[in-house]
């Protein structure tokens, strides 16, 4: 009975296992295509089966409601876009590549619906282990191996810390279930043990989100991993973890805000600043995007830290726009060789491919938050919710960071338009071009719907 209610998840895992078997007989391209198809079907099943009521399954190991279903929809759509990039690009990885992405996606959609520390940890590890392998998939490249090893060791350490935090939580409360944990925290005094446990769990989450001070792995892993994996890293896990964190803080562990809020505030301020300064002198685009993603998650954390409905809404809006913009940028990057993503590679495309350059600069300007593009709307709504709740100094820090970060986005545009063209010409597949241009068009026209967006936000807040 329960398995029917989690039909999307069931379908997702069974189809990935079947594909794993089929991989022996079918060729790689077919598997990639099938993986894409299966994810699309999963998404369709999810949309059809989504119900508004809240249900608990498997002795409350999982929880399902409309928010969780929409978060899963977001993750699956991101996964579909990544698989689309894989299908359209020239890469010919071993067939396990797309199946690992499927496993990671399965981990993520279970993660957001987890309702107990146990199921959460299992889903988290399923996601992480798939990501370790994906990061080191280019086993002939030293960078990729470095990325995999680095990611694995540091990530394993943070998982240990998280597991320790969970054991503390369990030890001090005797509960593993979020709902029971929440009611325990409401009825009992919060001891240091619980706070430590909670903070350790947060550390594990922050590590995966690459938030300062747990960001060290991000630039190396982003640079070393195959570009499609980098695109995957910077979108899907972030979507899963941010939506999970929003759920955890707003639905489950409601009364620990006062302990978590200062952590969120400092972490977000540090992230935006470190990302702004760190990215300034990067020559490698993937490294640069790693730093920039740290900053964007910092922005999201800033609006999470106010714990209001308006804050979470603007965080979600920022997340969606960030994902669209990143996918647009990466769909250009995937056609450059994995270990050759220097900014200099873009030089002169302003003259050679003016339309591509136009779309890319729209995406870059949107990332730096220049009006009237979508990135501005996202940043604006974050500023609005911050100032509404009185966090003026944090918004000043965000402003400083966005000016500095504007420099390196402009720097990329400088290379595209003002520098002399480099000799190597790259073939740019039509499909990827369409994704880039769609992303940039969404960024361009979003402000026409600004009123609807605001009414959407204000209705909820």
């Amino acid at each position, binding site marked *: 009975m329960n398995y029917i209610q989690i039909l999307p998840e069931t379908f997702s895992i069974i189809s990935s296992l079947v594909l794993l078997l089929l991989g022996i007989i079918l060729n790689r391209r077919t598997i990639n295509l099938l993986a894409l198809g299966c994810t699309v079907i999963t998404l369709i099943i999810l949309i059809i089966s989504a119900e508004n009521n809240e249900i608990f399954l498997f002795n409350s190991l999982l929880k399902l409601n409309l928010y969780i279903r929409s978060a899963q929809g977001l993750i699956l759509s991101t996964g579909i876009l990544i698989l689309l990039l894989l299908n359209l690009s020239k890469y010919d990885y071993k067939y396990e590549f797309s199946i690992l992405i499927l496993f990671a996606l399965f981990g993520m959609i279970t993660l957001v619906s987890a309702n107990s520390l146990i199921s959460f940890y299992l889903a988290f590890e399923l996601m992480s282990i798939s990501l370790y392998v994906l990061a080191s998939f280019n086993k002939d490249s030293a960078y990729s191996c470095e990325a995999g090893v680095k990611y694995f060791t540091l990530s394993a350490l943070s998982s240990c810390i998280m597991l320790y935090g969970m054991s503390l939580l369990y030890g001090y409360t005797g509960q593993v279930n979020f709902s029971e944990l929440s009611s325990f925290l409401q009825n009992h005094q919060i001891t240091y043990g619980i706070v430590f446990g909670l903070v350790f769990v947060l550390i594990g989450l922050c590590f995966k989100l690459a938030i300062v001070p747990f960001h060290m792995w991000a630039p190396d892993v982003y640079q070393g991993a195959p570009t499609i994996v980098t695109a995957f890293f910077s979108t899907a896990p972030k979507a899963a973890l941010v939506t999970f964190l929003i759920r955890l803080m707003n639905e489950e562990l409601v009364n620990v805000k006062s302990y978590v809020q200062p952590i969120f505030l400092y972490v977000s301020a540090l992230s935006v600043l470190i990302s702004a300064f760190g990215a300034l002198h990067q020559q490698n685009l993937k490294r640069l995007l790693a730093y920039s993603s740290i900053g964007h998650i910092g922005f999201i954390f800033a609006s999470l830290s106010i714990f209001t409905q308006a804050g979470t809404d603007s965080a979600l809006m920022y997340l969606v726009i960030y994902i669209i913009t990143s996918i647009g940028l990466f769909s250009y990057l995937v056609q450059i060789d994995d270990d050759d993503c220097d900014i200099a590679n873009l030089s002169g495309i*302003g003259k050679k491919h003016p339309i591509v350059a136009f779309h890319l600069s729209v995406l870059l300007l949107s990332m730096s938050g*220049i009006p*009237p593009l979508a990135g501005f709307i996202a940043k604006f709504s974050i500023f609005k919710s911050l*100032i509404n709740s009185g966090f003026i100094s944090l918004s000043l820090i965000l*402003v400083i960071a*966005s*000016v500095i970060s504007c420099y390196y986005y*402009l720097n990329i545009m400088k290379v595209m338009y003002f520098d002399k063209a480099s000799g190597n010409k790259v073939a740019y597949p039509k499909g990827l071009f369409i994704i880039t241009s769609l992303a940039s068009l969404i960024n361009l026209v979003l402000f026409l719907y600004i*009123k609807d967006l605001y009414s959407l936000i204000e209705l909820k807040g």
Partner: protein
Amino acid sequence: MLLFSIFLLPLIGALILSLIKINHKSIYLKFISLFFAVLPFLLSIVACIEFDYNNADFQFVSYPIKNVGIGIDGISLLFLLLTTFLFVICILYNCKMSYTTLKAYMALFLLLESFVVGFFVSLNAISFYVFFEAVLIPMFFIIGIWGGKQRIYATFKLFLYTLTGSLLFLLGLVYIYSVFGTFSIQKLATLVPSLDLEVQSLLWIAFFISFAIKVPMFPFHTWLPDAHVQSPTSGSVILAGLLIKMGGYGFLRFSIPMLPQASLYFSNFVVVLSIIAVIYASLVAFAQDDIKKLIAYSSIAHMGIVTAGLFSFCEEGVLGSIFQMISHGLISAALFLCVGMLYTRTGTLEIAKYFGIVNTMPKFGFMFILFSMASIGLPGTSGFAGEFLAMVGMFKSIGFFTGFIALGTILSAAYMLNLCKQIIWGVSYSKLLNNRLDSIEFSVLILLAVFVILLGFYPTLALNYLKPCMANLLVKYNAL
């Protein structure tokens, strides 16, 4: 609808240009761009005729997007006219350019025109902010692609400087919104003055930094000489003619009507900065050996008079400042065009390389002298009326200290006359300069000269539109 079509037409022009394939030498390219620049100008003349200048309220108000209004009062009408006119001049002058990328150049200018028009007609603080910042995007490319040797440094400096200021402005706006729940500029003008002085001061500082960078006022001025020197001629024209007026316009729409107590509190501070700007920039201009840099510094000095006049809070001062902005828009545009014409002939802007131009290019010499005199503020040119009124206003508010501003105008006479002496007069002449002005160049300068002299003799032409707005603008100051 009229205003919206003025805003939309250049945008459509830019879109058409970016979509069609056309040779850069093609006459159609020039025709299309000129068409989409002239039509808004004609429409804004229509707006000017239909405008009821006894009415101080916003007119032609419409709402293209829900809650995002556009409309003009006397002040924005003049800026709208200046905008559409200067873009006609620029596009006309661009037709002479032989860039292979002329299509993109024209398209960016049309895009810029649309943004600037959108800025001046905005009645919603957010659309105001959006255009305030969006003008940077076309400007970034215009300087970065078609600029001089140091163009990348200059364009980054321009972009980042202005962005810093405007983000502070955004924070201020968001704060105001969180208190009053509206972005309508008309409503805010009546609501915001109720804030207490402490909050007003913080908001004022945020607004001031952003507008002062745009104007530019003394400590924030360093981006301007770089941007001007590196920018292509038409870019300088727009930069000096319109973009730096956006800062002054921002003071007129936000700082002065919305934050009266804080403005009054900080008025001496602004006046001191303006005096420093006038004297310091004039002295620096005197020491320049690059013509464009000299005119750029003179812009800073003239904008110093504007800010001092604005913060005198009496009718003459504010009228004079607005008039001075319009007139400086025309004069500096003309001077930068003149400089551009010299540069296309010789490829240098060093003052020492030029002498005796009047011998080979008499028409050019005449025009250059005319505009220099206008820049100094000779009676009979538009420069005079603005400076005179602004100083009358200053006498009423700061009295004796107006002398320092007056000193600045004397210095401006010194450096402009010196420049004329060096490059225009003289018996011997440089062989480089023996081709005369062609028809486009001459007509561009004549058009500007007509307006400069017209406004010099009949300043009431412009002042009639401004006067009714003054009462609204300054009513809070008369009460204080």
